[in-house]
């Protein structure tokens, strides 16, 4: 297949060609996503060197496992979830019990799990949630992070944000509802779709 034709193929079509051994299709798919994976890692990790390391590992891992892509979501969502999962795992490893380890669940019911498969599913849900959290306006993301990740009390949030107790509670409620609604949308239509609509 000539290069011009490859460029017109969808991601999913490229994967079919890659699985048939077409390395040019591999190059095309990789070149579509390597920058996005880097910037996504950077948005989670914040440190450029660390983000590079994680992006590199994610790309190797994902592109070596293309044969396991089942097409249940778009390729970009699949890759995005792997990126998030890898970054979150790195955060957990690096900051055990600090950033994410002792975080109360925003979605306690859906996160209740016991088996390994359920742990994996929970991880995916968590990944989607963080993807959405990062896409919220800074003020909402900060509020949710302070409350649910850092465990700040309403009283402390009042002082930090210079707001009344009821204003803090109201903003928390709205931000939570917004995140919940986006989460439901992401589960239905895919994270990528939701992120492009924001």
């Amino acid at each position: 297949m000539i290069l011009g034709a490859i460029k017109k193929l969808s991601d999913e079509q490229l994967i079919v060609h890659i699985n048939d051994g077409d390395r040019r299709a591999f190059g095309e798919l990789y070149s579509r996503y390597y920058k996005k994976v880097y910037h996504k890692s950077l948005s989670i990790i914040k440190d450029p060197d660390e983000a590079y390391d994680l992006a590199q590992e994610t790309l190797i891992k994902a592109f070596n496992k293309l044969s396991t892509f089942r097409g249940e979501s778009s390729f970009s969502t699949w890759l995005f979830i792997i990126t998030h999962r890898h970054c979150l795992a790195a955060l957990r490893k690096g900051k055990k019990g600090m950033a994410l380890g002792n975080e109360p669940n925003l979605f306690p019911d859906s996160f209740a799990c016991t088996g390994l498969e359920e742990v994996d599913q929970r991880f995916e849900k968590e990944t989607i949630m963080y993807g959405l959290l990062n896409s919220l306006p800074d003020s909402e993301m900060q509020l949710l992070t302070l409350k649910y990740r850092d465990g700040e009390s309403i009283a402390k949030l009042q002082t930090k944000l210079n707001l009344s107790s009821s204003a803090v509670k109201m903003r928390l409620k709205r931000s939570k509802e917004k995140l919940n609604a986006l989460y439901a949308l992401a589960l239905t239509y895919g994270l990528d779709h939701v992120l492009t609509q924001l």
Partner: protein
Amino acid sequence: MHKKILFPFSPGKSLNSGYAWAMQLAARMNAPLFFFTTVPANEKNKDQFLHHVHCSLLEAQGSYLQYTSQRRAPARTEPHIEQGDFTGSLSQFLKRIRFDIVVIDPQTSGLPKTSLKYVVENSNGVIVLPDHPENSYHSFSTSTKESEKKITESFYSVLHHSDLYKLQDNFFHTLGKDKGVFNYLRSLFEKKRRRSFT
């Protein structure tokens, strides 16, 4: 103890070809590969520049992965990005850390010939790749056994045309342990055997 390989490159240069060869070397020797480059001291947007360097490395990785065997694990890599003049910073870096092999690609290193002497003095071995390497990985469209053989051929062809300085005796001994070489040689034997039967 693993040998350490360094691949320095000037910022802003395309590093696909030299990168791929250095990665092949590191993978064949089971050695970690270090990258070295600099952010110019007068660069106004350092963060942006850093992102550009990281993305260049990821792009080169894609090019390498595209035409290499997925059965061979990529080498572990670590970038060192310092601030300042490239040649001066590299000299200081080599003084601090002694590398077993420094791979110089004249197209990407941007090192003046006069500095090469310094690099040779401050490392255990130097490989200067040919100006116009023949290792066109881009001519292989599939990852069949045939292309694997061509990659091995092209790797050794580049080594053959490179200038080698101070390489230790055990360099070729280490390379000789590479399974890829054995498979390559075995395929040559098979070819010869087939020829003798016809």
